[in-house]
């Protein structure tokens, strides 16, 4: 089985993001980039399938500026077999739908049995690309999954379909889907694996083919969305510690503050 994982390179969660001077983008000068966390779960889920069945191959693709190559290297270091970088001037400013269209071309060429995406990217949190990709391809999709595996083999040993687990309140739903499908990933059971050093060294040497976004029929003008303004969240005011007096007095003071100052009681 061939799996394709779509990832996005986003600022690492340890980075304190600042708005750039233009007021419409983030200041990229001090940023450490990484694979978006949900996408990392998607990579882990794909690799767990490969652990279970070594005949599985896992390819990873990203659409973005050339620095996104590092995200692909990270996925290769974790154990993915091949990587495809869709880049070029056109790839710098695409919106979710345009990214999905570019990915659809890659999927048509690579012909994977299923496609995994993170449920949303950690930078813009739109949660759009997976579903848009499925629609563009005309494939079914299941969102926010936590596990998948081939359904029990039929009498001829052929795979009937894929069983998919979704976390719901208090338990799991199990879905069965046939044929090619797009899955968006909520979480993997295990934390995304730590790349081994030989894995990192091998990934460093691996060839990553590059596709120009415009050659896939998308261009910079294709974006339907435009960011007008970005602003940081308002600075948090200092908290207040109620500590004078005994327990009764502090409780009374707390109620008074919640009622009169915070006005939430």
């Amino acid at each position, binding site marked *: 089985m061939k799996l394709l994982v779509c990832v996005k390179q986003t600022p*690492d969660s*340890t980075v*304190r993001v600042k708005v750039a001077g233009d007021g419409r983008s983030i200041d990229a000068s001090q940023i450490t980039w990484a694979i978006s966390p949900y996408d990392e779960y998607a990579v882990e889920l794909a690799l767990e399938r490969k652990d279970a069945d070594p005949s599985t191959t896992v390819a990873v693709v990203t659409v973005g500026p050339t620095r996104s190559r590092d995200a692909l290297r990270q996925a290769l270091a974790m154990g993915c077999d091949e990587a495809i970088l869709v880049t070029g001037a056109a790839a710098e400013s695409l919106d979710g739908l345009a990214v999905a269209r570019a990915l659809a071309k890659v999927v048509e060429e690579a012909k994977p049995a299923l496609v995994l995406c993170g449920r949303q990217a950690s930078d813009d949190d739109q949660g759009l690309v997976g579903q848009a990709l499925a629609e563009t391809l005309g494939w079914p999709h299941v969102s926010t999954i936590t596990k998948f595996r081939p359904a029990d083999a039929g009498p001829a040993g052929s795979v009937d379909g894929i069983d998919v687990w979704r976390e719901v309140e208090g338990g799991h739903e199990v879905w069965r889907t046939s044929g090619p499908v797009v899955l968006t990933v909520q979480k993997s059971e295990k934390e995304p694996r*730590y790349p*081994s*050093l030989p*894995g990192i060294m091998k990934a460093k040497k691996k060839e990553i083919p590059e596709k120009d976004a415009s050659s896939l029929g998308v261009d910079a003008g294709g974006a339907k969305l435009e960011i007008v303004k970005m602003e940081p969240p308002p600075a948090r005011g200092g908290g207040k510690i109620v500590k004078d007096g005994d327990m009764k007095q502090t409780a009374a003071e707390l109620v008074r503050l919640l009622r009169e100052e915070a006005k939430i009681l």
Partner: protein
Amino acid sequence: MIAPTTGNALLIGALIVVWAVGWGLFVRRAWQLYRWLRLGRDEDRTEHPARRLRDELVIYLGQRKLFKRPYLVRGIAHALIFWGFLIITVGTVDLFVSGVFGYRLPGTGTAPFVWTVDLFALAVVASIALAFVRRIFLPPPRMHVALDGYLILAGIAFLMITLLVFETAGLVAGVAAEGSADPPLGRAILGLWPSPFPGESAAAVYGAAWWAHLVGVAAFAAYLPQSKHLHIFTTLPNVFFRSQRPRGALDLIDGIEERETFGAGSVRDLSWKQLLDGYTCTECGRCSDQCPALATGKPLDPQKIVLDVRDQLLREGARLVRDGSDRGTPPARWKPTKTEELWACTTCAACVEACPVTIEHLDKIVDMRRWLAMNEGDVPPEAQRSLTNIERAGNPWGQPPDTRADWAKDPAVPTFAEQPGAEWLYFVGCAASFDRRNQKVARATVEVLRAAGVSFAILGVEETCNGDPARRIGNEYLWQTQARQNIETFGRYGIKKVIASCPHCFNTIANEYPQLGGSYEVVHATQLVQRLVQDGRLALRDGAARDAVAYHDPCYLGRHNRVYDEPRDVLDAIPGVERVEIEPYHRERGFCCGAGGGRMWMEEKVGQRVNHRRMDQILAVDAKTPVTKVASGCPFCLIMLDEAVGARDVQDRIKPIDVLELVATHIRPPGAQTEARSDEVEHLGRASG
């Protein structure tokens, strides 16, 4: 005495055959063990020959490490058996030589020699009796009491008793050699009991006991290399080739980018010295006695780490020697639970300190962790998170790297970029940079340095994690990356002298950065303060409060670097502070807080928490001498102790504090107390980010 074989070619032949068989078996096994030892990777252990010879005299011949306090009586007993063995061996060789050639070794007939042999024989018998009693009635909890030990003790007892019997019987039978002194013990026995041998039997008893003794020696020789008693030989090289690196320094993996495997993926990847450690272990369990992980119910047992390596070598050795491409089982996968044992280690080095035969447990554990971390990427998830955080944010907590110097904004602390000529670098470390409680220690350090007029600066956001947690978790590659980056930054500013308030920063910069070409004069803050006080550059005032301060030894300051006295001197120099020792768990026996070896960032779900056990030890002292503060010199100890006083509900009367904070409160004008209230303290979690 005249040997019973004298003039009888048949008996001489029999004696030669018996000894040839016994020692032949010894040599055969020794050769086999040597060949298996050679499976280990090469490691040069010949530097500092003079120190090695001194170790041999002090540790091997002098038995120094056996006399540690809790083991003093058995240590003396052991030393008597050992010294007895050395002396009596000369006598044994003499017996054999005179039995075969009828020739006495020079000096063996003299009264001093005969007296020494007899006195030691008596001491050995008494010590063996003590050992038997202890094993049967008071078995030490961690000692591996097995048949092997009893056989060895019985064997030694047999040799000593036969020696005394043939000496006594020889006196009665009148076989004393001309000009040879009488054995005093035989004389004494005959003095008490004039005719122990009825009729003419003395000569027969003499002959029988003599033969029993010499056949016994041959049998013992054959048995020895099959048993843990082999240590009487292997300790000799094991002490000689002990590591002469600073204890706090782990081994460098050279040319890491060109390698295909890292750490111990096979017994072949452990060095020959690490394998020799296995042959040398006597299963005494002293390492296990001191292990904080084992004491609190974790699966780790340092003795087992050593014995597992030995057992694996004994089981796989023949196969691996036959087939050069066979790599056998990775030591970290020797048992299914092995990885849990390895991750439980805090690298506190209590085991290494305790071992009487200089076994190096830590290097094995880290080599196995290296294999797990770098080859398999198999690291506990929280530890993995801390490694990723170091990679991406330059600190294990995953705090935004551009906030590293936020603590130093008010009052402003100069950076090297602002003040390039500063004499000292204050390497703040991640804990004091990001953890709110420990930021107070950083501020206190700055205040003290300023008060003493020390020229210093920090690196600010240019500082990055020193790499210690990564190296101890097993990610040598990440340590090297971090270390090279810091060395590069130090070099850019021409930094020669470094102050660290964290013992982990101190240890790795002082002892490990030289492996990558970064050599500096490095001091821990308490060492510098001690010097400043001594030189009269820092005057300490009497504070308002009287404090009884228990001093907790951080492992990477104490055991790893033997900085025991400086922090104590500093405490003693503070007026109004009375130092309390956490006896007996202090100095060399200081009990870990539980945070070393990357454990700071791992969950502790099994057994009791190590810091709670440590707190209980402090409370036991407190019950006799009330303690108001517990001082340490390490940010991780501080975090652990803070948690522990809360867990034991003593936070209102015992306050964890850093030595530097205490110093800082005593350089301020009286009344200007700005100490933290413990309820305002906020620590970073174990694995956030």
